[in-house]
């Protein structure tokens, strides 16, 4: 299944708890859509994390034809919640597919509230990323609480769950399956459907029964 078919809406808003893998997923989704010939902009709207943000992959994204919309270099490490004006172009230009990489937790998602009136006029999906190996959100109950809290601060409705369960370099296909169960439990508790399961391409042969979104690790550590 193509990325455009898995994620058919013009705007994809990527939210979730800290460290569930939102940036990794967002960078991969933007690259996959671009590879399918879509015009893609990736908006780095993370104003809560100082490191490991999608803006650190600017050259990779730009070489793949993805427009990166992020705070200008002068403000990139300024430790202030600055957002670029070009963000409006992503929200308003209906010829462009937008991937919005949002900072973690309700505190990171709060940034969306300001754009809510515009987003409501657009064809959007708001995703909630699930990672069963993150201690704060490993139960369906806690995960659902975070999901509802993100909806509350943004005034937007979550439309889909993406299982992105991993253990960094130690991930196995079993971790992904563990996340499948959690995603389904969250889905039952919230009524929000599971869209797909993100997994490194090397696990595809063991996970053929799942709706997969294959990813390649892009947010590597300096020694990897």
């Amino acid at each position, binding site marked *: 299944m193509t990325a455009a078919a898995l994620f058919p809406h013009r705007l994809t808003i990527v939210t979730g708890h800290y460290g569930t893998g939102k940036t990794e997923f967002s960078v991969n989704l933007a690259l996959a859509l671009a590879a399918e010939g879509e015009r893609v902009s990736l908006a780095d709207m993370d104003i809560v994390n100082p490191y490991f943000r999608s803006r650190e992959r600017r050259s990779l994204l730009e070489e793949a034809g993805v427009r990166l919309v992020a705070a200008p270099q002068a403000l990139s490490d300024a*430790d202030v919640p600055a957002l670029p004006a070009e963000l409006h172009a992503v929200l308003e230009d209906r010829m462009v597919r937008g991937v919005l990489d949002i900072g973690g937790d309700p505190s990171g998602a709060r940034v969306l509230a300001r754009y809510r009136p515009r987003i409501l006029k657009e064809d959007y999906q708001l995703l909630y990323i699930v990672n069963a*190996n993150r*201690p704060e959100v490993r139960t369906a109950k806690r995960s659902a609480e975070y999901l509802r809290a993100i909806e509350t601060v943004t005034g937007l409705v979550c439309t889909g769950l993406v299982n992105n369960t991993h253990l960094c370099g130690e991930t196995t296909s079993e971790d992904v399956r563990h996340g499948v169960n959690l995603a389904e439990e969250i889905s039952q508790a919230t009524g929000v459907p599971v869209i797909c399961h993100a997994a490194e391409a090397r696990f595809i042969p063991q996970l053929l029964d799942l709706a997969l979104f294959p990813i390649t690790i892009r947010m590597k*550590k300096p020694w990897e």
Partner: protein
Amino acid sequence: MKREIWKGSEAIAEAAIRAGCRCFFGYPITPQNEIPEYMSLHMPQSGGVFVQAESELAAINMVYGAAASGVRAMTSSSSPGVSLKQEGISYMAACQLPAVVVNVMRGGPGLGSIQPAQGDYFQATRGGGNGDYRTVTLAPANIQEAVDLTQEAFDIADQYRNPVVLLADGLIGQMMEPIVWKERTPRQLPEKIWAASGRRGRDHTNFITSLLIDAPACEAHNLELAKKTAEMEKNECRWEEIMLDGAEVVIVAYGTPSRVAQTAAENLRKQGVKAGVFRPITLWPYPYARLKEIAALDTTRVFLDVEMSLGQMLDDVNLAVAERKPVRFYGRCGGSIPHVSEVEQAALEAWKEVK
């Protein structure tokens, strides 16, 4: 055991709670805000106290007060914030109060940058505040070690009645890695009979002060502290040796640069250059004795010290090697991380120079 993914700063906070820390006082600063954020939620749930103080000075002096009452207490900050805490650390060392101070280092000097750095090596290992004292300085290179050392830090602090510094660079605080929560065996620790925790039937009042206005009394007190310093130097030294078997070029690095150095050494080994990594885990006490032995080996030809600062640990490497072998240096600073290729190149040049 179940593996979980933790962010460094959160893991340090949870490790402290599991080690019995019951008081956290802090003031926010990037890149360690997840420590107070995590503490603000979880410390009250575990029956402890979280206070966001009005400043770093207030926070460290709250730690002083809590530690004086015999409670396990901690504060955390990043470089410029830790500079502000030095007075309190000196006072706690003087008063023989156990506490844990976490420094998630960023670029300096001054306010510097918010990206990872190691420019606080001198401050952490040489005392930092005024007077004759040292603090055991623990430098994790991965999140599992950050967890283990945080828990160990409280035991070390209690054993020697001395502040302990956990010195992590920003990347250790911000990155995520899988960890397990191990069953640990706490040290046998003396009862805190010195604590100012209420008289409770004692025949005397415990009094805690760093003011010893009579010079001979102050000197005698310093000599007592020096005995503890010697004990810590004797007992608490830690390091890791990575691929040092037959290594001709020995890269010395701690924290994030040691991870970069390990990848560089692996790459060099593939090219036929025998490279290895010596990783100090305690920066004070420094593993001089073992590094001296390595310097004396016939196979060892040259050392390369790699830091995210401009040659601070280099002083200790030079003290240990003592001109037995050449010591070269490669450093980035201000928030820049050395690339694997840069370290590889520097090691290769050092190796060729002495070949």
